[in-house]
């Protein structure tokens, strides 16, 4: 026991003086960070199980047991419905987020770079941003109808503003000296953008993208709660109407997992980008 504990510490000095502290913290417990982060979810799961299965404080309608939710999930998985709901929701979020983020990047770049465009358009964009995005729903349903399009548009609206705001304000604050140096060496327009301005705003753009993605999920649920025949938001309303609290909880857990998963993927991209650009 003592041997296994001592050996890593004994090996350190050979590696050079600068690193031991960094190494020690990393060696503490393998995957220590993950373990600590898992404590609260496991406790919550235990509590959930305790108040449903063991003490029976809540009825199955109020709060079904964890196993019931799992069973509901397996049931939906076997019938193929689960895949359908998750698939369509994911598709809507990705398309809507893609469109919204692309437009946000484009318009944010335009307004961030051109003071004429900024003066011309910023008041208008600001006014649109002031409208709570869900207020567009009735108009969208009226104009576009209850199809995929209206949902994707709503999600795109949700994703657009955080991305737009992030890149717009970041571009306005790019180090003017670097920009001038770029210009002095013959860069202008799109080449200046690609060489100096965009790389300089990469960190803010990614925080904008992550906010936009979170908004996209938010607006997905809103869109599907209002009018949909499939998707996780539809699963929520349908389960509520049928008293299937187990499925309702399943939908919530799935939304949490999917949201976290897509955010993590974006986070990986962000770390990669920051390594290159920051």
């Amino acid at each position, binding site marked *: 026991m003592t041997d296994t504990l001592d050996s890593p510490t004994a090996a350190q000095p050979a590696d050079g003086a600068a690193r031991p502290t960094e190494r020690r913290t990393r060696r503490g417990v393998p995957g220590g960070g993950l373990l600590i982060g898992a404590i609260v979810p496991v406790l919550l799961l235990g509590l959930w199980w305790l108040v449903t299965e063991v003490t029976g404080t809540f009825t199955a309608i109020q709060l079904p047991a964890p196993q019931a939710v799992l069973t509901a999930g397996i049931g939906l998985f076997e019938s193929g419905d689960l895949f359908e709901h998750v698939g369509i929701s994911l598709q809507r979020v990705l398309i809507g987020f893609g469109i919204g983020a692309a437009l946000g990047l484009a318009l944010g770049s335009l307004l961030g770079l051109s003071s004429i465009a900024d003066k011309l358009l910023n008041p208008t964009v600001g006014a649109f941003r002031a409208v709570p995005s869900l207020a567009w729903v009735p108009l969208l349903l009226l104009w576009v109808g209850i199809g995929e399009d209206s949902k994707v548009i709503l999600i795109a609206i949700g994703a657009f503003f955080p991305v737009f705001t992030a890149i717009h304000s970041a571009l306005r604050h790019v180090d003017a*000296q670097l920009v*001038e140096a*770029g*210009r002095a*060496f*013959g860069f202008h327009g799109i080449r200046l953008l690609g060489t100096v301005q965009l*790389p300089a705003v*990469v960190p803010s753009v990614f925080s904008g993208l992550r906010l936009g993605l979170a908004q996209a999920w938010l607006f997905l649920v809103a869109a599907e709660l209002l009018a949909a025949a499939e998707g996780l938001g539809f699963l929520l309303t349908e389960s509520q109407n049928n008293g299937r609290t187990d499925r309702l909880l399943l939908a919530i857990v799935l939304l949490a997992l999917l949201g976290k998963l897509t955010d993590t993927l974006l986070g990986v991209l962000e770390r990669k980008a920051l390594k290159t650009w920051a």
Partner: protein
Amino acid sequence: MISPASTLNGAAAATAASTADASNISAVAAPERGGRAQYTSLDVKLSGVGRAFGSRTVLRDVSLQIAPGEVLAILGSSGCGKSTLLRAVGGLDTGNTGEILINGSPVQRYDERTAVGFQEPRLLPWRSIHKNVSLGLPRTLSKSEGRERVDELLELVGLHDRASLRPREISGGMAQRASLARALARRPGVLLLDEPFGALDALTRLKMQDLLLDLHAQTGTTVLLVTHDVDEALQLADRVLLLGQDPEDPDPAEGATIARLLSVPGERPRDRASAELAALRGELFSGLGVDSHSH
């Protein structure tokens, strides 16, 4: 208006060999590389150049001819428009009055016949030193030609072994050398330096001055150097332009103009302690409004 010093061309041709052993930096530079034949040094002609910001006149009536290959130091108290003049020559600022001709034709916006070395290195933090220097390359160059030229320049400024590092991984002096290399990458006819060594420590500054002399000896390019350091001006320049109020003018108008224009005698590198330079130093200090006896 005032003709260039007769020593001008001789001084511009000061040999690299004599500076080569002056410091570690210039010892790295190989005189046989970057042949000066590839550089065309251009002349600059200023006629009645002035600049006002709003109702405040900063510069007025600056008329001056700068010969190809000359090193002109621009001195003046802070805020007197030294940088403004330099930026006007480089086309970084276009709001000036009067006329600025480079090689006989007017200065364009961000004129590509010039290149600027700023007071701050202004390197892109996300690019390697090599890639930063290559920002200064002319568009007409092929990729391999460009790479070759950057390699050459990095060797010239003694950074060839730091090429792959990021700006934050090198010292301030090295960053300033990279910035110089970037400015030279387009082989400018006129090199504009805006207090390029102002932020460096005294020892590094001396080494950088030697490097600049060395680069000038090899490229022969015309250099306009803004500085607030009288000794730096005397060490590097063929002529020193002192901006300020004209001492002859009994009722000077607002804004700085040519207060003095002095030819600096002697070939570079000059003895920093020579009596001739001491006299000039005294004159420049008094022109700057500083009593030279207290120095």
